[in-house]
């Protein structure tokens, strides 16, 4: 249990370091922004091999996390980079699209991702390509009938 969390934590740490380095080249000091509560970083980790699906689910967990991150600093904007990792990690793309649509974080880009993995391979996407910005309204969806 701790082993796995440590591994996940280490992976996230590595990714955050890479992100910090890349953003620094654009003139932003991420560590400083985090320290001054101007920005919150969260990393979504989806490991297909450890996931089994049984019955209906939604992405409320992700949106609760987004909500908590937004509330932590009173964020005005949210950047998701990238939703491809969700599409490759979960087996129900129709549900994922519906979830994002309901959340109004939908973009043409998300809808167009039929072959996210191929697109990723083809693009050789840099690990910090900021893909889209959305308005911060994470809790709007509560109570929406499915």
């Amino acid at each position, binding site marked *: 249990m701790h082993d796995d969390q440590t591994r996940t934590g280490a992976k996230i740490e590595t990714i955050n370091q890479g992100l910090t380095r890349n953003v620094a080249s654009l003139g932003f000091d991420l560590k400083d922004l985090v320290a001054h509560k101007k920005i919150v970083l*969260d990393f979504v980790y989806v490991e297909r091999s450890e996931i089994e699906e049984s019955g209906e*689910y939604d992405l*409320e967990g992700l949106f*609760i*996390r987004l909500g908590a991150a937004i509330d932590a600093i009173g964020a005005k904007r949210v950047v998701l980079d990238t939703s491809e990792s*969700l599409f490759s990690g979960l087996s129900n793309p129709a549900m994922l699209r519906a979830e994002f649509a309901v959340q109004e974080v939908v973009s043409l880009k998300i809808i167009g991702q039929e072959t996210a993995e191929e697109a990723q391979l083809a693009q050789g996407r840099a690990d910090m390509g900021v893909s889209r910005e959305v308005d911060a309204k994470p809790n709007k969806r509560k109570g929406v009938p499915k």
Partner: protein
Amino acid sequence: MKTKSPRPAQTGEKTVPGIAASSRYILKLYVAGQSPKSINAIANINKICKENLQGRYELEVIDLYQQPQLAKGDQIIAVPTLIKNLPLPLRRIIGDLSDTERVLVGLDIRNTA
């Protein structure tokens, strides 16, 4: 009949003898409020545990509306999510757990059919 074959000859119908059959299970179920999916998941996992893991499991139910900060630490994305912390390997079962076979496979109680 005293052979301890790790795999039953017939497909997927028998429980697997071995480590999983005697291990203690540490499970966490993450739900969001009183949604139908959440309520179903709680009912389903309670039933599955009673029928398959009698006396050797710990199940903690966490409502993310009450404790949103816990979602990040356990990397919760989908809801409901059942996490099998022990026995290893860690496994996440997402959904309302209505497909009992898939839950049993995910918990390593049953072989993949």
